[in-house]
């Protein structure tokens, strides 16, 4: 699946909020992709837009090169890519039995009725629930973890190729959380299912994702392999986000740079780089130039920060040598790092 220059705008013409502002992403077959960021950065909106659950104002979503516009294409997309949500208490219809909940996608997609039972049974077994016990239960008779398993079963009953998980475990307890993640990762391996984890929990992204994209105020500000981005973050925002994760190890203390303040209002974005008011490495051009993603590492690691060559869109169009000469960005990067380490 490919997303290019996607934008989602909320609000009236006079007070526009750009929830998604030009996001491009690739999601490969069988890949586990993490989309991380604070509440309000647009990660859930992005997921909804990818499935056509949210009207977009620009850009396109393609599945194997075919644009997902029009009713038929959208129907096809939603059969092949499914989604599960954060709150298993709100996503299941309280008046439907598990059997009806899991059957619903089959009904919607017009699958032949004679095979429903077989699909439902298989989906429940796949998520580790015994069909004999659970088929006739109502959601209120299930625990949080069991509900999330039912939600996953309903998402998998059509045997999709991709599953978008929006904070799938953030409301669950530690031991239930690892059970649900084990179910998901097990399915990922057995079915070569592509997964997207939308999360603010970088430690989860670290342990499960192949690649991650870090979002800030509707933009992807850094992307790359999970290992590169988390072990060696290039964007100051990613760095701060990694530092905010509590570490279950000793002797870490809390003496680290904390991200101050909250996300600015999306209707009133700061000029230049949208992270600059909270950035500890800002320098003079940060409030003038809006950076684009530039290559910053060998394995497709990219960051949208003026510390790096190629992030200044005007310099890029004019050719790299015109404004600063090669290496100037890197010098700045080193300078900034030097002042901050001390």
């Amino acid at each position: 699946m490919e997303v290019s220059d996607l934008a989602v705008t909320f609000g009236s013409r006079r007070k526009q909020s750009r929830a998604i502002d030009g996001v491009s992403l690739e999601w490969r077959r069988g890949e586990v992709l993490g989309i991380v960021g604070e509440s309000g950065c647009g990660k859930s909106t992005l997921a909804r837009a990818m499935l056509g659950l949210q009207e977009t104002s620009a850009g396109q979503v393609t599945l194997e090169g075919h644009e997902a516009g029009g009713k038929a294409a959208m129907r096809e997309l939603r059969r092949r890519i499914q989604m599960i949500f954060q709150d298993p208490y709100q996503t299941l219809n309280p008046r439907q039995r598990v059997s009806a909940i899991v059957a619903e996608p089959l009904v919607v997609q017009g699958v032949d009725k004679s095979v429903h039972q077989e699909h439902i049974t298989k989906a429940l077994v796949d998520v580790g629930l015994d069909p004999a016990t659970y088929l006739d239960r109502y959601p209120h008779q299930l625990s949080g973890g069991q509900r999330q398993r039912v939600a996953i079963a309903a998402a998998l009953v059509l045997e999709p190729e991709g599953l978008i998980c929006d904070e799938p475990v953030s409301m669950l307890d530690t031991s239930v959380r690892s059970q649900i993640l084990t179910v998901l990762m097990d399915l990922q391996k057995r079915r070569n299912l592509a997964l997207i984890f939308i999360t603010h929990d970088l430690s989860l992204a670290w342990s499960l994702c192949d690649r991650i994209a870090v979002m800030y105020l509707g933009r992807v500000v850094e992307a790359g392999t999970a290992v590169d981005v988390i072990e060696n973050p290039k964007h100051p925002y990613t760095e701060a986000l990694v530092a905010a994760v509590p570490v279950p190890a000793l002797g870490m203390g809390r003496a680290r740079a904390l991200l101050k303040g909250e996300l600015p209002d999306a209707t009133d974005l700061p000029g230049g780089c949208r992270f600059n008011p909270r950035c500890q490495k800002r320098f003079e051009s940060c409030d003038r130039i809006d950076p684009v993603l530039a290559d910053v590492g060998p394995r497709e690691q990219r960051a949208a920060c003026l510390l790096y060559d190629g992030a200044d869109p005007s310099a890029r169009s004019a050719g790299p040598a015109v404004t600063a000469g090669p290496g100037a960005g890197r010098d700045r990067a080193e300078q900034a790092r030097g002042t901050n380490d001390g």
Partner: protein
Amino acid sequence: MKNLLEVEDLRVEYRGRPIVDGVGFSLSSGESLGLAGESGCGKTTTALALMKLLPDGLSQSGSIELRPEGAEEPIRIGKRTEVGMQVVRWRHISLVFQGAMNSLDPVKKIDFQIDEVIRLHEKGVSGREVKERIADLLSTVGLTPKLGTRYPHQLSGGQRQRVMIALALACRPSVVIADEPTTALDVVMQAQVLELLEKLRRELGLAMILITHDLAVLAETCDRIAVMYAGRIVETGTIEDVFSNPQHPYTKLLLDSLPVIGGTRGLAPPIPGGPPDPGNPPEGCAFRPRCPYSEDRCLAVPDLREVGKDHAAACHFSPWASWPKIEAAGLGVQK
């Protein structure tokens, strides 16, 4: 010196079934204790019992003694009546409720809500002093006093959580209990709120009980930890001891299942099953049905025993010299 808070053999029952079953711990001033465990393990019930705020139908017994600085006689919370508790709550011990962000009154301004708490619990404070204290409290929790003129819906989740902490501090208590104070917040807000709690503890010398299922949060903020399972404390000790040398299989498996940035990628085998049904508890050790190390002797209930200096565990086999390798059994299918 006596401890600030001493809890012994705390029990909470619902229709004869124990929800909290013989919990005991102590807290000295300026110390922070983490109460860890999954939903339903009794940690929130314990907090409510300490405040004598249990809902109808739940009855508590056991001794809870609080010795605020300067007090000659301890306050015996366990024996206090509702009327007697009203002068203790918020004055000496306060609670930041779970999901607190949503427990502010939506139709009253922030200032007014703090004002109410102060006046209700401290008679005869002048209007001017209350005003000053509100401004003070708001800046203590990192909010500009100007925000006091707003309504809760005009604040973000993180700001509302800070207001709740300000409310808990309004009458200068010596113990603050925070029940899942960061669970609804994202990592950035979580880090900010934890930093704030840490600062308050340092600067005001507050003793704190932090309740959460997130062990990583406890590792960063607490001096000591008590791990609860099915209404009992199954392990307690300093953070260092418990994290580096866990002595109960439950603690050990929970710690193993935590993802750690920079650590091994992938998933550790999860603990199978779920917590026991309080109406139908398993025979013997409550963790036995989920425990990969269980044997016949686990059919007897283990006591919480010392396994080291200031370190206790409720497992027949502790102290564990080493942890036998367990086969990843897989999750199987839930019946």
